[in-house]
């Protein structure tokens, strides 16, 4: 009797896991098709778009670029200079010195001839107190605003302070050490200005690893595939996530997240939704979720759009320790988000967000590490007790492996279809080769670190934000400058 019950349970478990896996693969296949359509449509539009019309236009909406900085003394000057090079007619750059303990503030004050000014602003979103606001006496830096505030122990708190200061109806959220393309603002404002039937509340674009790129004075000179293995895996992951995943979701207006490294937001909606949550570990995803919630609660027809152009390069962690910290935080953020907004799950009131995007994130992002780990343990137990049908087991393993390779290869293909960022065959090969080993070497790390994040959250373990310990960028050989540390 017990044996029969156990056999039944075994069968139910195996079938559930199989259907779960099959469902995930089918969703990925659908995303691949949707993103292909989306990318092609975008490329067709791009072929005749002249972005120069917005550069000199008095009708261009203003954008506030908000970039928090914490102990960035070594690179802050080139970072700020890089942010001041946007090709856009109406923007301001707000740098928030989030209580740095190094010479970040002193350096910018000296370099950009800043003076402390009387600046009136309304505290629409709570943040740690602002100690002072600085503007340049040099007209060349008229677009620059430096906000000096007490450390809020999170990027969210610093960005909220920036939103309170921002003058324009849209804000671009980035990290001060990200390298942004000079056309970032024109390209990100376009989906907002050309949507016919909805209010676009956020837009985003692809991010890539800057690790091995050639950079001169904060500008990318040559894009190269990262050399360090960990960064190369991340590059592949980003390509798959942005070009295939987010472009696919964008097509059906179900984008789950606009990256904290690069995202443009509708300021009014962001403020009404309450701004960034400093207590959140995934503040970017959490804000978008609340913005989505707000527009649905207030019956505002809204959209979130992505474009498949790389506009932001960021330095990915190359040490396992830093990478673990980053991914643990992401895992914890996802767990926290799902708990906070659990009422949205399968709630038709929230439309596609409640019925598609949120359930997907719950079932296939949050639960996936659990299901995978349980599956592996179960497999091992079966193997120990000699209950594995090896030919079938190998077929099933091949099934998952070949599908994972297919999805990643398609992502690389879509990326190649958009813009051929890599100039050499070797760079393409470097990324394409990762497809075959990612599942064996990289994916287990992602699962372990995500579970670690969940564990930390469940047992309320203290999380140290730590420092990204950036290694700096390799300068262009033509420029002949020394590398920033």
């Amino acid at each position, binding site marked *: 009797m017990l044996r029969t019950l156990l056999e039944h349970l075994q069968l139910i478990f195996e079938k559930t896991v199989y259907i779960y896996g099959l469902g995930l693969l089918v969703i990925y296949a659908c995303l691949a098709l949707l993103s292909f359509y989306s990318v092609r449509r975008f490329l067709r539009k791009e072929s005749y778009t002249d972005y120069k019309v917005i550069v000199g*236009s008095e009708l261009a909406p203003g954008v506030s670029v908000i970039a928090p900085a914490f102990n960035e003394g070594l690179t802050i000057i080139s970072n700020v200079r890089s942010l001041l090079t946007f090709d856009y007619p109406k923007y301001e750059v707000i740098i928030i010195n989030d209580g740095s303990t190094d010479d970040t503030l002193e350096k910018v004050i000296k370099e950009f001839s800043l003076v402390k000014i009387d600046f009136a602003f309304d505290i629409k979103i709570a943040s740690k107190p602002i100690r002072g606001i600085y*503007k340049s006496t040099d007209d060349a830096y008229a677009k620059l605003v430096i906000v000096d505030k007490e450390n809020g122990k999170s990027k969210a708190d610093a960005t909220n302070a920036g939103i309170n200061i921002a003058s324009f109806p849209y804000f671009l959220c980035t990290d001060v050490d990200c390298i942004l393309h000079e056309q970032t603002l024109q390209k990100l404002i376009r989906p907002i200005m050309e949507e016919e039937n909805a209010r676009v509340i956020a837009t985003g674009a692809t991010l890539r690893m800057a690790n091995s790129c050639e950079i001169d004075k904060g500008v990318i000179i040559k894009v190269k595939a990262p050399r360090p293995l960990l960064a190369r895996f991340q590059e592949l992951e980003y390509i798959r996530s942005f070009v295939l995943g987010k472009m696919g979701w964008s097509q059906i207006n179900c984008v789950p997240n606009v990256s904290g490294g690069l995202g443009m937001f509708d300021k009014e909606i962001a403020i009404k939704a309450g701004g960034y949550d400093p207590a959140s570990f995934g503040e970017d995803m959490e804000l978008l979720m609340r913005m989505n919630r707000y527009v649905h609660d207030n019956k505002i027809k809204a959209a979130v759009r992505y474009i498949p152009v790389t506009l932001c390069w960021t330095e990915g962690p190359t040490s396992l320790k830093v990478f673990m910290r980053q991914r643990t935080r992401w895992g914890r953020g996802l767990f926290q988000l799902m708990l906070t907004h659990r009422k949205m799950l399968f709630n038709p009131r929230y439309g596609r967000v409640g019925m598609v995007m949120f359930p997907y994130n719950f079932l296939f992002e949050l639960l996936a590490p659990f299901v995978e780990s349980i599956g592996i343990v179960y497999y091992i137990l079966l193997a120990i007790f000699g209950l594995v049908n090896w030919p079938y087991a190998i*077929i099933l393993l091949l099934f998952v492996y070949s599908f994972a390779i297919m999805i990643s290869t398609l992502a690389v293909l879509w990326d190649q279809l958009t813009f051929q960022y890599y100039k050499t065959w070797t760079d393409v090969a470097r990324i394409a080769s990762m497809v075959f080993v990612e599942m064996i070497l990289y994916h287990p790390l992602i699962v372990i670190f995500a579970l670690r994040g969940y564990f930390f959250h469940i047992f309320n373990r203290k999380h140290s934000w730590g420092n990204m310990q950036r290694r700096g960028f390799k300068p262009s050989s033509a420029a002949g400058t020394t590398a920033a540390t």
Partner: protein
Amino acid sequence: MWKDLADLLFQAYEQYSLLPLFIEIALAFIFLAILSTLIAYSAILYKRYRAYVYEKRLAFISPKIEDMITEQVLLNPNLGYDIPLESIEFDPKALSDKIYRKPFVRQMMIDTLIQYRKNFRGEVGELLRKLYIDMGLDKDSFAKMKTLRWERKIKAVVELTQMDIPISDVTILPLTNSGNPALRAAARNAYIQLSKNEPFKFFDIATEPLLPWDQLEMFKIITTTKDIAIPNFSRWVSYSTNKSIVSFCLKLIAHYDQQSAIPAVMELLSNKDHYFRADAINCLGKLSAEVAEDKLVKIYNNQPLNCQIEILKALGRIASGKHLEFLKSEFLYSSNFDIRMNAARSIIKHNTQNSRLMVEELMEMTHEENQLIIKHCLNPLIKY
């Protein structure tokens, strides 16, 4: 051999059909995944190879085209002697070169001519246009107009517009109302540039919206194209049912300072849509419509915040001084920060003896936060 292969496949199928369903599905997926991966890699290789070949061809053809244009147009010996363009002939040998029969080269020729025409106006620009026609490239563009692919149609419309080749109303007008936003925008822009008599005729029939992104280009075209007959845009403000057209006309009215449009714009103050009213108030402010001031102040209390802010801004732009007291009371007694900030800005914007005295008085009598607002507004370093 074929028989053996068929037998083998049949046996494999028999084996396959004996497997459990979940393994059958898995095997089907494996086959699909391997096939798709191989196709994807082939596509990557092909795509990069094509890009490589394109670059090579470009490097080979581009100098030839540029040399030809330089010889035939820029260094044309007949230029500068007031010779009518129609009588200037190009070297037939250069034009009939076999290379210019290839579609790829012809397209490159069109693109290069467009680039040159952007840089050269006057006689040279006209000669470039003549070269485009004499080589029969206009026929290529018209052929593209007839395709079903919308992006090809857009390309054709842009080429013909850049080369100043007339397109009949029958062809272009229906496109100005196309369901495809991109094609619609290109057709509208072309119509404004090419129609000599009534460039804004499509405003009358436009039922599809004029998107903010499309307004950018259209605004640029209208405000920079020479010899364009600028109408009184109040016509559409009064009669158009297309909100985006009205909104765009308000911007044009402000840009061209069409004072005669003020009564029509004032009519919009009773419109139900508050975004629309805000646009109208903004326009009145930019027109410095003193005649509208009293009405703006009268309706102020019944307006939502965005309209109230626009009214305060408008009073600052008009700056007649009649409503300084109103601005002062808003600054002193409003609980809304944005209202106080805009009221202060508008008082300062008056820049008269009275307003300066009022600012001094306010600095003395008001509380610390309001003083900070005034200091903020007075600071020349703060631009926005």
